[in-house]
């Protein structure tokens, strides 16, 4: 066996082992995250079946209600940024079962919500486990708060 062959075989073996390790340790959806726009989500099977999903949208103006007693935040997301003159039709009500909201979370903010859609007595509502927010791109070198604030975009 030549030396090159030995090295190649060793590297392949290590790569296979690491690949196997990755495959057995990664939960579906936990690591390979991407998100849908609100428009895509509404018509998708994820919405009707109540599957775990990540949805991108904008917080509707005047929709944020912090309920301290119930330890939750209610708000609505819409497809278009409210400042851009987009209509507020087709908003999705969201319930976040925590008072923990990111710095950039405010009316009009671009957000990604993570959770599942379920049918409440009052109608369909998105139960979010997590909210990521991004500030409007004003600066060339703009930061988005915590490094993990906004996952990469599903374009």
């Amino acid at each position, binding site marked *: 066996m030549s030396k090159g062959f030995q090295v190649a075989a060793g590297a392949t073996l*290590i790569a296979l082992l*690491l690949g196997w*390790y*990755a495959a057995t*340790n*990664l939960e579906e959806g*936990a*690591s*390979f*995250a*991407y998100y849908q726009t609100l428009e895509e989500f509404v018509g998708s099977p994820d919405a009707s079946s109540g599957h775990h999903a990540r949805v991108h949208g904008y917080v509707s103006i005047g929709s944020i209600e*912090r309920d*301290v007693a119930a*330890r939750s935040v209610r708000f609505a997301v819409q497809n278009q940024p409210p400042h851009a003159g987009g209509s507020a039709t087709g908003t999705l009500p969201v319930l976040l079962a*925590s*008072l*923990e*909201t990111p*710095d*950039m979370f*405010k009316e009009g903010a671009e957000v990604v919500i993570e959770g599942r859609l379920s049918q409440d007595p009052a109608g369909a509502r998105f139960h979010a486990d997590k909210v990521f927010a991004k*500030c409007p791109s*004003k*600066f*060339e*070198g*703009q*930061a*988005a*708060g*915590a*490094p*993990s*604030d*906004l*996952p*990469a*975009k*599903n*374009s």
Partner: protein
Amino acid sequence: MSEIGAVALRLALLLALAGFGAGIYAGRSRREDWTRVAERSVGVVFALVTCAIATLFWCFANHDYQLVYVSAHSARSMPLHYRLAALWGGQAGSLLLWLWMLSAYSAAAVWAHRGRVRRLAPWVCAALLANAIFFLVILVGISDPFEKLPPGHVASDGAGLNPLLQHPVMMIHPLMLYTGLTGFSIPFAFAFAALATGELGTTWFRTTRRWTLFPWMFLSIGIMLGGRWAYEVLGWGGYWAWDPVENASFMPWLPATAYLHSVMIQEKRDMLKAWNLLLIGLTYTLCLFGTFLTRSGVVQSVHSFAQTPLFTSVFLGYVLVTAGVFLGALWYRRAGIRSENQLESMVSREASFLLNNWVFIAILVMIFTGTLWPVFTEAVLGNRQAVGAPWFNMFAKLLAPVLLLLTGVGPLIAWRRASLANLRRQFVWPVACGLLTALGLAIAFRGGITFYAYVAWSLSAFVIGTITQEYVRAVRARTRKGGENSLQALAALLRKNQQRYGGYIVHLGVVFILIGITGAVLNEERLENVKPGGSFSIGDKRLDYLTARALPAQHYGGAVARLALYRGDEPLAVMAPEKRMYWLEQQPASIPSVYSTLHEDLYVILTAIEHDGSATFKVYRNPLVNWIWIGGVVFVLGTLAVMWPHPERR
């Protein structure tokens, strides 16, 4: 005034082109006079770029809002030191800083080796100037820091700097990082010169030993300061999130560290010539690639700047050409870099160093894949998927203990081939150290911590045992000979064999850092909503929420909450987390308050002041996190011990 800078950059480009030509010609013709032309061009380019960057600093200091760059990254309300630091707050300025550091290193290296290494010199100059040319082309043609706003659009005030960047650490973190990244241009240029001339002996890496250690140290400091900044400013309780830009700074560190180890094998055993050259090429390419990643917006990140297709293609092209030319040269000289010696045994220090190299490269591959996953998936599947922290943590968890083990094992095994007696003599105490620690942990925690923490901390104890044994034996050997007390012997060790004994200190720092990182398995986080007068406890501590009041108006406003921290009845501190709003930038920021001890950090964030007068706090208990910073200091001291110049060793 700004015209001076613009002109200086254009002149520098001309000079760099001329010097590059002179270097190539001198290298091919071996003419000393043309070598000197190339060397002088390096100096003049440095002077011109210095002039340009000084001009830009001047424009920031004096509010020259005619300049697009100055008006976009600073404002009158910012204090002078942040206005100056705003120079590296955006793309054009940070590239200018890159270029300035590159040219400063180039000039320093050429000056330090004047009259020596005559065959390598012209090629070193050519390689360094080629890099300068690229940055000059970008700065003159694509991303011009001296571009002016059209008349009529000039405002009396600027847009301000991202408030998160207005922090003392942010003034030095980029400088440290860039001092690291740009510095690898010197070993790279020497390696390239070695390939170009065929002088593939030990000259190139002996000449560049300190030129490699120096940027390596600064890169390490930069990475750690970045973590420190994230911890103090971003307000999410952590210091490392596997964000693309963090990865970008970490990636070149890996092959550089691998190189620092494997070059010792070349020194001792004349093996791995090609591998070492490859590692240096890889390191510098990754330095460029990291800069590209953070300055292009290819991967979304906290730091990424506006994406312009021209910038992307030119910069990526440059990275690929650099790598391609280097690999081409390596291929061309493949006959000259065959190793004379073979690995004799798998139980030898060479083998443990080789394994260490493989682990570093595996970590690199893992980070590279994860960071660029969105780019790969977009290209192949058409939609962008990102991998999150779990991906990176999963591999780091697997590979870090392996590395830790090798840190302990490497110094204990003999070169060439270790005998059984050698192994027995060397391993007894360190292994006992590790086992005792494992036992102690088991008793102390009674299964309260994960298996992973047991392994990591026991291995840490094993490595500390190794290092202590090495020191104790060496000191004892010297004192036994007489004439020296223990302290003198210690000092003599660090002076006479600084690479080895300084290296152990670096290892000790790394062990501390890993102990601190592993502390995360004991982390605890809570979200608490309390009214003034209310209290809550976390761990053995209690927090009384006293009041909240408005922050005195500056260029930001907001609220600060006051909490009294107790352990039992013993008052410890008053904590004051802030929720800020930066008016001009319309950006909120949470400034955490941290109570820090060797044992643990208590980290409090004011999430919100609610309508009913209560306040919502996010509280983290981060055990051992301080050991990361302590380890960082030890690491740097160790590196200094390795590099410290001693007159008798020149």
